[in-house]
C-alpha cells in the first residue's frame, strides 16, 4: 500500500546514494556502523512511538480478540468474542450505516470541496473572505458544530431552522434525525459542512501550483471548461486527490461523533449506529473490551481487503 502514496516524482533522489552512504563506501567498517547508529538515533523517538502506540497495539488487539477477562483473570476463548460480536443485533446495521455514510460522504464530502476550490480559484475578488468563510466551521470544536445542527437545524418541530425554511418555501418538512431515511444524509450534510474547509484549503493550494501554460495550451486546442478540468485540473492534482480520497474513506469509516451527538447514539431504530459506535458500546458500556477488540480486528480485515482491492485497481489503471 505504500506505492500509491509515494509520489513518482521525476527525480528520484532516494535512489542515489546518500552523501553519507557515498562516503562510507570508502571508509572503515567502524565509520559505517557509527553512521548507521546516527541514522537510527534520529529514528528512535518516532519508532518507539510507533512501536508502543501503533504496532504493538495492533498485535495486542488481535491477541485480545481471542481472550476474555473475567474476575480479573484473562483466559483464551478462541472465537467466542467473534461469535458474540457477529451475533450482536446491531452488527449488520452498523456496517450498512457506516458504508452508506462513507459512500454518501464520497459523493458529497469529497466532490464538493474540490469544485468549491476550483470555483474559488477562479475568483479575483473576495478570495480571502471566501476562504475564511469556508474554513470557519472547522474552527468550531466538533461537538459544538454538531450541537448547532442538532438543536437548531435538525429540530423536528417547526421551530427548527430547516423546517422553518422548508415550510416558508411550501415544501414538506422532515423529521431529520428521527426519520431513518434522513438520518444518514443529514449526518453527511453536517459532517461535510464542518469538515470541508480543510480539504478546500488543500485543494486550493494544489490548484495554485498548476502551471498556467497547461490551460493555455488546452484552450488553444479548443478545450472547453469541462474538458480543461478533466484533462488539466484533475490529472494535475491526481496525487492529492487520491491521497485525500484515501484519507477521507479511512476517516468516514470511523464515523462516531456524528451519531453520538446528532442521534444520541443509535438513532431511530438503529439507523445511526456505526461500527465505531458499536465498538464504543461493547468496550465501554457493556463490559466487553474483548468483544470490542474483536470488532476492531474485523474492521481491520475489511479495510485491508478494501486497500488491496484499491491497489489492484490502481495498478491496472497504470
Amino acid at each position: 500500500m505504500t506505492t500509491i502514496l509515494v509520489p513518482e516524482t521525476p527525480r528520484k533522489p532516494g535512489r542515489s546514494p546518500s552523501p553519507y552512504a557515498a562516503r562510507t563506501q570508502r571508509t572503515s567498517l567502524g565509520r559505517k556502523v557509527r553512521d548507521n547508529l546516527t541514522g537510527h538515533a534520529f529514528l528512535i523517538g518516532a519508532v518507539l512511538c510507533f512501536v508502543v502506540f501503533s504496532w504493538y497495539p495492533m498485535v495486542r488487539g488481535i491477541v485480545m480478540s481471542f481472550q476474555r477477562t473475567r474476575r480479573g483473570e484473562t483466559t483464551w476463548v478462541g472465537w467466542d468474542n467473534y461469535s458474540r460480536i457477529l451475533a450482536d443485533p446491531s452488527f449488520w446495521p452498523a456496517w450498512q450505516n457506516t458504508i452508506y455514510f462513507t459512500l454518501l460522504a464520497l459523493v458529497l464530502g469529497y466532490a464538493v470541496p474540490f469544485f468549491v476550490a476550483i470555483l474559488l480559484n477562479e475568483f479575483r475578488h473576495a478570495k480571502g473572505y471566501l476562504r475564511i468563510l469556508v474554513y470557519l466551521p472547522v474552527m468550531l470544536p466538533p461537538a459544538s458544530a454538531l450541537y448547532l445542527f442538532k438543536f437548531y437545524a435538525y429540530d423536528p418541530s417547526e421551530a427548527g431552522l430547516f423546517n422553518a425554511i422548508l415550510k416558508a418555501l411550501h415544501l414538506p418538512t422532515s423529521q431529520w434525525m428521527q426519520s431513518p431515511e434522513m438520518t444518514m444524509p443529514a449526518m453527511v450534510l453536517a459532517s461535510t459542512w464542518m469538515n470541508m474547509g480543510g480539504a478546500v484549503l488543500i485543494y486550493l493550494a494544489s490548484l495554485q501550483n498548476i502551471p498556467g501554460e497547461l490551460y493555455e495550451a488546452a484552450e488553444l486546442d479548443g478545450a472547453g471548461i469541462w474538458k480543461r478540468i478533466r484533462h488539466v485540473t484533475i490529472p494535475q492534482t491526481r496525487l492529492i486527490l487520491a491521497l485525500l480520497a484515501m484519507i477521507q474513506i479511512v476517516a468516514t469509516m470511523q464515523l462516531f461523533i456524528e451519531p453520538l451527538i446528532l442521534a444520541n447514539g443509535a438513532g431511530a431504530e438503529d439507523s445511526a449506529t456505526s461500527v465505531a459506535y458499536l465498538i464504543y458500546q461493547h468496550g465501554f458500556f457493556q463490559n466487553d473490551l474483548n468483544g470490542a477488540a474483536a470488532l476492531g480486528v474485523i474492521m481491520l480485515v475489511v479495510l485491508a481487503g478494501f486497500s488491496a482491492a484499491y491497489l489492484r485497481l490502481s495498478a491496472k489503471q497504470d
Partner: protein
Amino acid sequence: MAQDSGTRTLISHAQLRRGRGRFIYWALLTIVVVGFTLVFLGPLYWMVTGALKSGQEIAQTPPTLFPNDPQPQNYIDAWNNLDLAKLLFNTFYYAAGAVLFQLVLDTAAAYSMSKLRPIFGNVILSLMLATLMIPAMVLIVPQYVTVIDLPILHINLLDSPFAIWLPLVANAFNIFLLKRFFDSIPEELMAAALMDGATALRTLWSIILPLSRPILGVVSIFAVTAVWKDFLWPKLVMPSPETRTVSVGIYAFAGGTPMNVVIAASVIAAIPTVIIFLIFQRNIMSGLTTGSLKG
C-alpha cells in the same frame, strides 16, 4: 483591481474581462459570496443569537431572527459552569505539545530516512506507511489498554498529556510529507555541508530546517487540527473533568445543561481559534501552497 493577475487559471483573465464573461463572472461571484455567507456564516449567526434567546423563545414557531429578550446570562453561565477557561487551556496545551513532539520526533525520523538512510530505514518506512490505512478506531481498544498500562514500564498515562502527545507522533502521514519534502532538497547541499565536517544534527539544523519552513508549518497545522478535532481518544484517556478538552467538555456538559447554555459555550470556545486563524491565515495558506502538496 485584480489581486494576482499573474497566474493563469482555468479560465483566462481576458475572457473574464470581456462583455459576457464579465457579466457571468460578477453574477457568479455575487451568488457565491451571498450563498457562502448564508451557508457558512448564517449558522454561526444563529449560534451567537440563539445562545442569547431564552428557553421559551427557542421553542417558538417560526424561529425568531433576533432575540426578543437577549439573555447574556447564558454566556456567563456557560463560562462559569463549564470552566471553559480550563478546557481551552487544556486543549491549547495538548495542541502545543503535539506540535512540539511531532516537529521534533517526526522531523528527525524523516530526516534520517531521507538523508541518512541507515540500514533497515526503508523497512521501517514501509512499516510506518502501512499504518496509514489503519484507522485509529481499529486500534482504540488495544491502544487504550496499552496507555493505561504501558508495557515494561507499567506506567498509567490516563489523565496525562503524554497519552495525547505520544500516540500522535506515530503519524505516518506527517512523516511521509516531511520525508518527501526532504527528498526534494538537493543532495549537493548536504554534501557541501559534509565537506565542512558538519555533523548530521548540524546539517539538519542549519541546512535542512531553514529550507523546510513551509512543510513544518503544514505539519504543525495538521497536528493542531488533529488535537482540536479528535473526540473519542481524549474522551477515553482524559476521564477527569480537570483534564478534558473543549470538545469532550462540551459533550459531557451538554448531558445536563439547557441547550442555549451549551450553544453559548460553543460560541465562546470557538473565539480563540477563530482569532488565531485570522492572524495566521496568510501563513497557513502559503504554507499549504508551498508545502509540497503539489500534485
